[in-house]
């Protein structure tokens, strides 16, 4: 079985995003960029399935600027076998990303496609579900555990009330949640080796996908800033404050 893992290059999660003064977006100039954390979890899970003998090949895919090569090299250094960059300088929306991924899946015929549940820049939480819809395949979103057994995959999902387990017929789409695993760091030798692994570069036109935006962002602004309040000296002062709120 082959596993396809879409990985997105996003602002590093440790960086506090700054909104541009002209309201046109978030300032990404000279900002540290990394692989979307949920996608690292997806890459890790794919590698574990390969190590367990459940998968033979892992293909990482990214849709983004030339620099997204770095993100793909990270996936290769972690343990992916090869990579595909669909190069574009445009911001591609989840629906168009899903369409490109569908076309790639038609060529690659993976048994599993593992995505992050959410990209931490657009916070959309859409791409995996959209891909599953377009491919008319099942989806195991917000995965907490993934077990492959023959031609089905059992996914325990993190839902609002607790956990839910579903069984999906493969090929299937899985999106990762935080508790699925702890991604490994790439070792130096593996980072060196990754430089020699194959990385194909394509364009969205190669897949016949129109990436024109459906949504127009007319403004990006900073949320209202919360002012820090006061610090109290001791528990008695805190109790007085809490009582003043009328909740005790």
């Amino acid at each position: 079985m082959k596993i396809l893992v879409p990985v997105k290059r996003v602002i590093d999660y440790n960086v506090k995003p700054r909104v541009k003064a002209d309201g046109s977006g978030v300032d990404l100039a000279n900002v540290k960029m990394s692989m979307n954390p949920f996608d690292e979890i997806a890459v890790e899970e794919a590698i574990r399935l390969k190590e367990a003998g459940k998968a033979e090949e892992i293909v990482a895919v990214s849709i983004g600027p030339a620099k997204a090569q770095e993100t793909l090299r990270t996936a290769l250094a972690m343990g992916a076998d090869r990579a595909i960059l669909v190069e574009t300088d445009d911001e591609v929306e989840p629906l168009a990303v899903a369409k490109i991924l569908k076309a790639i899946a038609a060529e690659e015929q993976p048994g599993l496609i593992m995505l992050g549940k959410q990209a931490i820049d657009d916070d959309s939480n859409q791409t995996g579900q959209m891909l599953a819809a377009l491919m008319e395949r099942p989806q195991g979103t917000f995965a907490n555990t993934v077990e492959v057994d023959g031609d089905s995959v059992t996914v325990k999902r993190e839902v609002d009330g607790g956990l839910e387990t579903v069984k999906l017929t493969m090929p299937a789409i899985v999106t990762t949640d935080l508790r699925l695993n702890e991604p490994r760091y790439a070792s130096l030798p593996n980072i060196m080796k990754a430089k020699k692994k194959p990385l194909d570069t394509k364009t969205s036109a190669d897949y016949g996908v129109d990436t024109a935006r459906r949504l127009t962002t007319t403004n990006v602004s900073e949320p209202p800033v919360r002012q820090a309040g006061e610090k109290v000296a001791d528990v008695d002062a805190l109790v007085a404050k809490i009582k003043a709120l009328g909740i005790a």
Partner: protein
Amino acid sequence: MKTLVLVEHDNASVKDATLATVTAAAAIGDVDLLVAGSNARGAAEEAAKIAGTGKVLLADDAAYEHQLAENVAPLVVGLMADYDAFVAPATTTGKNIAPRVAALLDVMQISDIMSVEGDRTFTRPIYAGNAIATVQSSDDKLVLTVRGTAFDKAEAEGGSATIEEVSGKGDSGLSQFVSQELAESERPELTSAGIIVSGGRALKDAETFEQYITPLADKLGAGIGASRAAVDAGYVPNDYQVGQTGKIVAPDVYFAIGISGAIQHLAGMKDSKTIIAINKDEDAPIFQVADIGLVGDLFKILPELTEKL
């Protein structure tokens, strides 16, 4: 505009998340409700009482019992011929189903709307709520998910909508529900609790968390939340997580106890009315958003606080 709202329910009754979604939908146009479930007439009857709605569409089929997206999405798509917008709560159910509907309709979903600015214009948070985008759709139909804390709840009583039975294809044959482990709790649900007491990594382990956080929450009749670190370390189940990628909450009073205040955590609670922080590090970022802060060791502070309240 005609909107169809996905009702969040457990077949027997309607979940609170539906109410704010109805308010958001009503700001766009007329509101009909969809109850997709199995033996779900109870939920449909409750939904029919929500004020300001037209009719309730009830799709009652064993295939919809657990609201598997593979089964519910085609049902919704079939109904959308009569509607301009599909509106779902930004719960795990809504987030699972809505994008599947959007893709089948070939439209771009707008996730987590916080306000309705016009017919096809909405605001939504991006970058963990560090920026608010105003977004306009050019698609024929709208698919939206709604951030519950950003809209008032519609009245749960007072309406008298008619219930109309509808049906879809039923089982897609793609996926199967196996089991669920749902937390049974007497406590208020996090997303609708008036008071929340949240604990972080500082709480050490599950027993310590229980020993220090629970008595305070009990005293205040509060819901219990946690940071990702506390969930990852197994102090509490995953559904306690508050934050960018967990639950979004906005109670009247939020206690952050032994939580540093990472942006991902703040994303989930910074719209709370009053934030109270207890942390031994006076420079912890949580104090930058806290209305009331107390610097010190929570293991000394909490027992005394609980007793004195």
